[in-house]
C-alpha cells in the first residue's frame, strides 16, 4: 500500500469512502453477532427481532459498496494496490453480508427455541463459540485497517478452534438426541446455529485472507488444517 496521495484527489476520497463503508458494515456485523448470541442466551425475542431488522442495514451497505466499487472501476481503472483495494473491499463486504445473514438466522431460531425447554449444556458452548468468532471478526477488521498480515494470519489459524468447538457440539447434540428423542427439535435448531457460527468463522477467515492478499499481492497457501470432520460422522464418537 502507498501512503502518498493520488494526483486525482477525488480518487483518494472515493477509496476512503468505500473503505469507511466496510468499517461501518463491520461494526454492524460485530453487534449483530453479539446481540444474536445474547438474545439466544437470555431468550430475549425482542433483541432477536432487532437483530433481524438491523440486517437490512448491512444488506443496504453491501449494495452501496458494490455500486461504489463499480463506479471506481469504471472511472479510475484502478491498478496494483488500488486494484487490490477495490477487489478486497468487494469480497470483504460480501463476507460481512453473509456473516450478517447467519446472525439473522440465529436470531430467527432464537424465537423458536425460546418456546422450548433448554438443552442442557448447549448454551455455554454456543456462547463461547460465538464469542470466539466475534473476536476473530474484530481482529480481522483491525488487521484490515492496520494492514497487519501477522494478525490476519493469526485469525486464520484460530478458525481451527471454532471448527473443533463445532465438532464437539455436533457430538453433544447427537448424544442428546439419542438419549431422548424429545430433544430432537431443539437440538436440530441448535445444530443449525452451531453450524452457522462455524460458517461465520469461515467467512472471517476469508476476510483475513483478503487482508493478506491486499498487503502481499498473494493469497496465502491453504495450509490450514480442516478440523470439521462431521461430514464423515455417522455416530457421536466418529465426529
Amino acid at each position: 500500500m502507498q501512503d502518498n496521495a493520488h494526483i486525482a484527489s477525488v480518487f483518494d476520497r472515493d477509496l476512503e469512502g468505500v473503505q469507511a463503508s466496510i468499517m461501518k458494515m463491520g461494526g454492524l456485523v460485530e453487534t449483530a453477532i453479539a446481540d444474536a448470541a445474547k438474545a439466544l442466551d437470555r431468550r430475549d425475542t425482542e433483541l432477536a427481532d432487532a437483530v433481524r431488522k438491523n440486517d437490512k442495514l448491512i444488506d443496504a451497505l453491501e449494495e452501496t459498496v458494490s455500486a461504489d466499487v463499480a463506479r471506481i472501476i469504471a472511472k479510475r481503472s484502478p491498478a496494483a494496490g488500488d486494484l487490490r483495494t477495490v477487489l478486497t473491499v468487494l469480497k470483504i463486504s460480501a463476507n460481512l453480508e453473509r456473516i450478517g445473514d447467519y446472525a439473522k438466522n440465529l436470531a430467527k431460531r432464537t424465537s423458536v427455541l425460546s418456546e422450548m425447554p433448554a438443552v442442557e449444556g448447549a448454551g455455554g458452548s454456543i456462547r463461547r463459540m460465538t464469542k470466539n468468532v466475534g473476536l476473530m471478526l474484530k481482529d480481522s477488521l483491525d488487521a484490515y485497517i492496520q494492514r497487519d498480515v501477522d494478525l490476519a494470519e493469526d485469525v486464520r489459524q484460530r478458525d481451527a478452534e471454532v471448527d473443533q468447538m463445532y465438532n464437539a457440539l455436533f457430538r453433544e447434540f447427537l448424544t442428546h438426541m439419542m438419549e431422548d428423542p424429545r430433544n430432537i427439535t431443539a437440538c436440530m435448531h441448535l445444530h443449525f446455529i452451531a453450524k452457522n457460527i462455524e460458517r461465520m468463522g469461515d467467512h472471517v477467515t476469508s476476510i483475513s485472507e483478503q487482508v493478506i492478499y491486499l498487503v502481499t499481492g498473494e493469497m496465502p497457501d491453504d495450509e490450514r488444517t480442516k478440523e470439521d470432520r462431521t461430514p464423515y460422522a455417522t455416530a457421536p464418537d466418529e465426529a
Partner: protein
Amino acid sequence: MSDEIKIAAKGVDVFYGDTHAIKSVDVEIDDKAVTSFIGPSGCGKSTFLRCINRMNDTIDVCRVTGDIRLEGQDIYDKDVDPVQLRARVGMVFQKPNPFPKSIYENVAYGPKIHGLAKDKTELDEIVEKSLRRAAIWDEVKDRLDQPGTGLSGGQQQRLCIGRAIATAPEVLLMDEPCSALDPIATAQVEELIDELRASYTVVIVTHSMQQAARVSQKTAFFHLGELVEYGETDRIFTNPVDSRTESYITGRIG
C-alpha cells in the same frame, strides 16, 4: 508467445551531449510478443526504442554505448548496414511523418525498394492489405493519389503504421502510435498489434496504462533513464515490486 529472446540489450547507456538519457539498461525482449515501455515524460522511452533500430545514429549529439543484439547479432557492429537493419526493425514514430508523396507511394515505397512485389498487381495488393490492417483503407481507398500530408493527424498516424508493416519487418517499434487516434481507431490499432504478435515482435511506447495492460505481455517501467522494473504485464499491473512503479501506474505523486 514463444520463449525465444528476439532482442537482448546489455549495459546500454545513451547520452545527448552531457545529458545522460539512458542509464545502464539491461533488457531481454521476447520474440512474438508485445512488450510495452511505460514511464513519465522524458524518462527515455523513445530514446531507448530508437536504439533498437539505430535511429539515434541520425542524431548528431547522441552517443550510444553498450550491447544490443538482434537474434544474437550485435546491431552496432560495423558490418551492420543501418538501412538493412531498419527494414528488419520497422518503426512508427511518436509524431506522424508521412513522406510528401501520395498516400499510395507512402506505403508502396518500402516494398518497392526491398523488391517485395513482382509487379504492379502485387504491389497494389500489399498497399491495400497494409492499409486495411492499419484500419485506414476505407477512408483513403478513393484518394490514394492524394498527398499523405493532406490527411488528418490520426489518419496520418495510421498511414505510417500501414507504411511500417508494408515491408513485413520482424520487429515493429511503435512510439505512442495511438496518441492522436480516436477510441475506435485506437481499438483497431490495438487489434492489429495483437494480430501482429503471432508473427512479429512488437515494442510499444505508450502513456496509456490501460493500453499497456491490454496489448502487452511484458511491461518495462522507465524512470529518469533507468529501467526500474520489467516483467509480466499482468504482474506489473496487479502487484508491482518497486514503489516507483506502483506510484506511476496508480497515478500517485511519486
